[in-house]
C-alpha cells in the first residue's frame, strides 16, 4: 500500500496498527474500517479526506476512545481504551451545553484539570480571546451564530492542552467566509501552541491547506488509499499556487477511487449547432 507506514516500524506519537471495525446493521456485517495503519508524529498536522461513509468519524472516535475496534491504537505509549484528557475531540456539531454560558462551556474542558480556580479563570479568558469571543463570555449558546458556537467548541477542546487534538469536520457546517477565517485561526493556534492535530474533512482544499500529511481514504470497506506529504511551510496561504499541485494529486486519487468516468456527456461530444 503506497504511503502506508511499515507496520513493524517503531511506533510514533500516535500509532494505529491493523485496525478493523465491523458494525452489525440488521444482522449484516458492515466493515467500516479495514486494516488501518497510520502513524502521527508529535507536532504534526495530519488531515484525513474521503467520501461520505468511508469511516472517517469512526476512525476518529476510536482514536478518541469513544468506541473500540480490533487492532491496536497507541497514543503516547499507552493503548487507547477509553477517553483521556490528553486527547481532545471537537465534534462536527459544536455540542455546547445550552444551559451554560460561553465561558462555562469552555470551562468544561478544565472540569477535571488540576488547575486552581484562579488559573481556570485565566485560561478560560485567554482561550476566549484566542477565538475572539471575549465579548460573548456571558452569552448563552442560543445567542451565538453557528461559526461562533464552533469557535467556542474549539476553545473548549484545547483549553486543557490535550497532547493530541482530534477534529471531526469542525468547519463542515459553516459558510465559506467563516470557514476560511477559522482555518487560519486553527493554523495559528496549532503553530503557537505546539499541538498535534488529526483533522477529518471532506473538503480537499481544507485538507491540503492545513495538513503536512494528507490521508486519503476510500469507502466500502473504509481503507487508507494513499498518504500524501505536503512539505510546505506554515502559515499557508489558500491562494498559494503550490497548494494546487497537491490538491490535484488528491483529486486524481479520489478519481481512481471513484472508478472510470462514463464516456458520454463530455464537452467534446456536444454538437455545436451550425
Amino acid at each position, binding site marked *: 500500500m503506497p504511503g502506508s507506514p511499515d507496520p513493524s516500524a517503531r511506533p510514533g506519537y500516535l500509532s494505529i496498527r491493523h485496525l478493523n471495525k465491523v458494525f452489525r446493521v440488521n444482522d449484516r456485517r458492515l466493515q467500516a474500517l479495514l486494516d488501518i495503519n497510520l502513524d502521527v508524529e508529535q507536532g504534526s498536522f495530519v488531515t484525513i479526506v474521503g467520501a461520505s461513509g468511508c469511516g472517517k468519524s469512526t476512525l476518529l472516535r476510536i482514536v478518541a476512545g469513544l468506541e473500540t475496534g480490533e487492532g491496536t491504537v497507541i497514543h503516547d505509549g499507552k493503548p487507547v481504551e477509553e477517553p483521556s484528557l490528553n486527547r481532545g475531540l471537537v465534534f462536527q456539531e459544536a455540542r455546547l451545553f445550552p*444551559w451554560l454560558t460561553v465561558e462555562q462551556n469552555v470551562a468544561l474542558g478544565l472540569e477535571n484539570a488540576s488547575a486552581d480556580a484562579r488559573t481556570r479563570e485565566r485560561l478560560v479568558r485567554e482561550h476566549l480571546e484566542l477565538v475572539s469571543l471575549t465579548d460573548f463570555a456571558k452569552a448563552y449558546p442560543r445567542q451565538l451564530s453557528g461559526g461562533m458556537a464552533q469557535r467556542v467548541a474549539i476553545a473548549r477542546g484545547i483549553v486543557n492542552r490535550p497532547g493530541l487534538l482530534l477534529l471531526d469536520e469542525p468547519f463542515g457546517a459553516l459558510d465559506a467566509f467563516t470557514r476560511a477565517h477559522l482555518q487560519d485561526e486553527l493554523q495559528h493556534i496549532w503553530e503557537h501552541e505546539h499541538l498535534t492535530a488529526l483533522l477529518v474533512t471532506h473538503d480537499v482544499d481544507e485538507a491540503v491547506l492545513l495538513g503536512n500529511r494528507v490521508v486519503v481514504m476510500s469507502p466500502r470497506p473504509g481503507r487508507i488509499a494513499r498518504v500524501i506529504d505536503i512539505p510546505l511551510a506554515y502559515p499557508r496561504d489558500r491562494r498559494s499556487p503550490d497548494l494546487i499541485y497537491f490538491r490535484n494529486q488528491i483529486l486524481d486519487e479520489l478519481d481512481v477511487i471513484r472508478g472510470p468516468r462514463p464516456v458520454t456527456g463530455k464537452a467534446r461530444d456536444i454538437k455545436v449547432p451550425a
Partner: protein
Amino acid sequence: MTDIVSSPISTPSVPWLERVQRVVTAFAIPLAFPAVLVLLWHLASTYELMPEQILPYPAYVWDAAVDAIVGGDLLKQISFSAGRVTAGFIAGAVAGLVLGFAMGFWHWLDDHVRPLFTAISQVPTIGWIPLLMLFLGLGEALKIVIIAKAAFIPIVMNSSAALRSIPPGYLEVARIFRFNKLQRLRLVILPATVPPVFTGIRYGLTKAWTALVAVELLASSEGLGYQLNWARQMFWLDTMIFSMILIGLVGFVMDHILARIEVRLQRWKLTD
C-alpha cells in the same frame, strides 16, 4: 428640518407609556375574552333567555362572592382544599419523581413496572374512588391518596422519558472530559431533564387539583368541591357558579406560579 430630526424613531421611548403598554398586554389581552363572555351572560339573563333560577345575573354571583369573602367562609373552604391538594400533590410528586427517575435509569425496572403502570394510568381517578373508599373509608386519607395518584401518573411518565431523551451527544462530551458521576449529574443530566420533568410536575398539579374537586364532590363535608355540590343541592346557583369560577382561578394561579419557577430554572432558554 427640526421635524425630521425629532422623528418618532429617534425619540427615546416614554417610560410611562411603555409601562401602560406592558400592563395592557399582560392583562387586557387575556381578560378580553372572559369580559365578553360575562357581557353575553349578563345579556342572556337580562332578556331571560334562561330562567333566573338556572342562570342568575353575573351581579348576583358577584354578591355571593363578596358575601363569602367578607364572611370568612370562603377562606376556610379554600384552605381546606389547598391543604389537601398540597399534601396529596407533594406525596404524589415525590413518589412519582423517585419512580420515574428509577425507571429512566434502570431499563429492567422499566420493563417490569411499565405495563402495570400503563394499565393503572388508564383507569380514571374517579374510577379508583369506590375501591379506595372500602380500604380507606371516607376520611382524609382517601382524598390524599386520590390526589397523590392523580399527580403521580404524569410525573412518572415525564421524568422517566426525560432521562431517555438526553441527547447522546451531550453524554459523549461528558465522556470526552472524563466527568465522574457527580459531574455528569450536575452538568448534564439535571439541566437536560429540567424541562420535561417540570412539564410533568405542572401537569401533575393540574391533575391533582381536578382530582381534589372530584373527590370533594363525592365524599367530603368541606372544601371548594363540597361547596359546589352543596350549592347545587340547595339551588344556590350564584354560589355554585362562583365556586366553579374560584376553582378555575385557584388552579390558574397555581399553574402560573409553577410556570414562573420553570422560567427561573431555565433562564438559558429566555429570548431577549
